């Protein structure tokens, strides 16, 4: 496996970050285009993700601007639907997923004591597919008819009515899927084959475990999505009728296929987030992770269960009663392993020696709010209650608790946690904490009130609403603008850290105990481990 490590001498002693002699002689843009280094690629994934987060965020703000007051003010309904669709797709596939692949790239080799990822060139290619996909998504706005206005779920047969923007979106989804699959193969191979001597699977940091399982989920789920959008493509252009009853097809078939991908996708987003949290909480509790083995089992159980609950997104399509009951029971079952995780995290903190630096604050924010999102998930798992709440703002609130307070908070925790190791410098702790508190407050301002909107009967994906929903929508919109501005502070903190942060020690966090802290200098050397450490 070490064949991928290029043959440059590496001088461990200088420890600075004099990168020039490490990357095959290219400099400037070519360095980034040709790099096969897991850290460079991880960095690119993270910056790409942040850019997409900004683009998707601007669309969210456009949506919230239109919804500030009843009536159509700024956009027409068609544009509104386009924003809804692209916000969802860009946030899921452009912001959150690449962010965690970025973490995987940076961290997995360092955590298992490897020099780099197993397939270094493939790694470069999996990243460089993304900008093409992102460009296609954004370009679709400028085609005749604009971007598709169908929601990120791309339900048939509405997709058949869309213009060429729909085709661009389909190709973008194909490319994103390819990128994910290639990345996953790389991660699986790296973890299974490149661990340092003595690093048994059950000694790996939990982050590596959650990514190993996520990678399998990706390999299993992404082709299903590719199939669904390909069938959409042929229905649009080549006269097939997979999703058209007039030709013997069924629109509901699309939903089944989509959600067979879609529910595992939820855990593709959540599991790596769980992984980050499982590194951060023990570090700031100065205490080993409670129930390591049960965490691994719980993660696997969630992954397996995630393939048999998809139709809980479809309680209102009119399934037979046995179908509804099966999917209800299976869905509630997921609460058990998820509960185990939450209990383990709390037990890790119990009788620890806690400090509350920014990564820990985000981890606690995650723990509290993700659990809240999990509980609304339990509410939604009950068929009769879901029938009342399906496709209302309650669902919008629910999945933002999971995706923003879950995945995004955990990504913030991870960035603050590892930034010193990545850059060799400390971020501004005060500003980091301000970032946390503002994010927390504005997040709840946006999304907590949406539970009320949903229960009171406001459908999702509407550009205008009856007067009784006005108050909560106003609060939510104000929160959204606060949230958006706060994220500029995050950008500032990261840039400030890179430019002028104080030098960081090898192990700035007292309780951190994985290899990147214990065995590598700060900043981490370009080729993580040239000689593998021996783990006892």
């Amino acid at each position, binding site marked *: 496996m070490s064949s991928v490590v290029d043959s440059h001498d590496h001088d461990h002693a200088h420890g600075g970050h004099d990168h020039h002699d490490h990357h095959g002689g290219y400099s400037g843009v070519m360095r980034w285009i040709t790099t096969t280094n897991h850290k460079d690629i991880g960095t690119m994934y993270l910056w790409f993700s942040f850019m997409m987060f900004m683009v998707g965020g601007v669309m969210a703000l456009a949506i919230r601007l239109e919804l500030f007051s009843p009536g159509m003010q700024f956009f027409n309904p068609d544009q509104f639907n386009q924003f809804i669709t692209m916000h969802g797709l860009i946030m899921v596939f452009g912001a959150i997923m690449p962010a965690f692949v970025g973490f995987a790239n940076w961290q997995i080799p360092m955590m298992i004591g490897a020099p780099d990822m197993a397939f270094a060139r493939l790694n470069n290619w999996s990243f460089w597919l993304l900008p093409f996909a992102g460009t296609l998504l954004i370009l679709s706005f400028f085609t005749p008819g604009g971007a598709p206005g169908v929601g990120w779920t791309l339900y048939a047969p509405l997709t058949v009515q869309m213009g060429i923007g729909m085709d661009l979106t389909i190709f973008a989804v194909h490319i994103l899927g390819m990128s994910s699959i290639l990345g996953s193969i790389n991660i699986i191979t790296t973890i299974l084959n490149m661990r340092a001597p003595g690093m048994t699977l059950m000694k790996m940091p939990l982050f590596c475990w959650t990514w190993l399982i996520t990678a399998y989920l990706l390999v299993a789920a992404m082709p299903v999505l590719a199939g669904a959008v390909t069938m959409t493509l042929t229905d649009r252009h080549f006269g097939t009728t997979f999703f058209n009853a007039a030709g013997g097809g069924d629109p509901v078939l699309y939903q089944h296929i989509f959600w067979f991908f879609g529910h595992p996708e939820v855990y593709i987003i959540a599991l790596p987030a769980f992984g980050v949290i499982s590194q951060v909480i023990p570090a700031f509790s100065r205490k080993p992770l409670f129930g390591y083995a049960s965490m691994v089992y719980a993660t696997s159980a969630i992954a397996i269960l995630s393939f048999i609950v998809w139709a809980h997104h479809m309680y209102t399509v*009119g399934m037979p009663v046995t179908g509804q009951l099966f999917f209800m029971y299976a869905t509630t079952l997921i609460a058990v392993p998820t509960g185990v995780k939450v209990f383990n995290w709390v037990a890790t903190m119990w009788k620890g020696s806690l400090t509350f630096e920014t990564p820990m604050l985000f981890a606690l924010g995650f723990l509290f709010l993700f659990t809240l999102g999990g509980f609304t998930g339990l509410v939604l798992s009950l068929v009769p209650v879901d029938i009342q709440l399906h496709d209302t703002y309650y669902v919008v609130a629910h999945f933002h608790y999971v995706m923003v307070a879950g995945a995004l908070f955990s990504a913030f925790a991870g960035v603050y946690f590892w930034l010193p190791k990545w850059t060799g410098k400390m971020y501004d702790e005060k500003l980091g904490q301000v970032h946390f508190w503002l994010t927390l407050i504005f997040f709840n301002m946006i999304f907590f009130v949406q539970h009320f909107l949903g229960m009171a009967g406001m459908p999702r994906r509407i550009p205008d609403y009856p007067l009784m929903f006005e108050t909560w929508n*106003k609060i939510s919109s104000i929160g959204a603008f606060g949230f958006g501005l706060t994220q500029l502070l995050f950008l500032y903190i990261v840039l400030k850290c890179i430019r002028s942060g104080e030098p960081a020690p090898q192990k700035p966090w007292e309780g951190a105990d994985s290899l990147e802290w214990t065995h590598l200098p700060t900043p981490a050397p370009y080729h993580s481990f040239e000689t593998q450490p021996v783990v006892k």
Partner: protein
Amino acid sequence: MRATLKRVISLLATLGALAASAQAHAIAWYFREPGSQLARDIDTLHQYVMWLIIIIFVGVFAFMFYACWAHRKSVGHKAAQFHENTTVELLWTVIPAIILIIIAFPATKVVIAQKDTSSPDITVKVTGIQWKWAYDYVKGEGEGISFVSMLTTPREQIEGDAPKGENYLLEVDNELVVPVNKKIRILTTAADVVHSWWVPSFGAKQDAIPGFIRDLWFRPEVTGTFRSQCVELCGKEHGFMPIVVHVVSQDEYSKWVAQKQKEMAAQQDDPSKTWGLDELKARGEKVYAANCVACHQANGKGTPPAFPPLDGSKTATGPKEGHIDTVLNGRPNTAMAAFGKQLNDTDIAAVVTYERNSWSNKAGIVQPAEVKARRK
């Protein structure tokens, strides 16, 4: 420029009116008042689960916050090093599983009740059409009645040029009328894309799927008007196809049925009648306003490229047959629906005539008989 400025100012004004608006409309934050046993059961189930959740949530996070407070490093707490405990781990796997089983019982009961659409008193077929609902009373008292129901909120209110009425976006021309305390079975289907029919007060929601028929039932217990909206994204005007159900006493219902049947008989058009240009155009304008204006716009300019203009268009100024066919059969794979089943020959002749003789178009009259001839 002025328009933008106007918007910004109105934005600022509304910002100031936040508190005022909170008082103007009672703040809705929970399910609507249940109007049927089913809705009440759902509400009860929801509260039951919510209380369980709140108790567990408070319990778990009491531990977390206690640890945050008592086990801080800053008060000198030393970290213990335990990292597993089989008993505790078993307990917190088994207890939640038991709680789930406890929840499953009442939930299952409601699921089964909700699915039981057998022996209804009245059956109504609801068809979702971009962007309105068609109601056909197919069985029980009122059988044979059918009408289309769509938004009546004027465009000026939506665009902010007129004050918004009390039932803004929740008002329709023809409400679904049903008698109180009768089991109503709704069959849902759709003409184009997936829609979803929902009345929160009855706990009744069912997707309307093109090419398939699904069903749901409710038994309203109180008279009154119940309002809601389409809940499945169905294209451009998804936010503008409300559902309004008017529940009346049995007496009133019978009267309404008689009245409606008389109206329908009177409305029967004679498709062989020959019309004059002006009267047909006047009728066509109404049909246009109800069915076409959302996409093709009042000025006939459409919103290209998705919704093409009719003013000066090849179809609307070329041979009549092409124009009639487009309206009858729609254009596949676009938002242009087939109106053949929703509109009668006279309506189609009227709207085609209107389109051919409005704006800059001058392409002659189309009689109902010509439409009839092109139906297959």
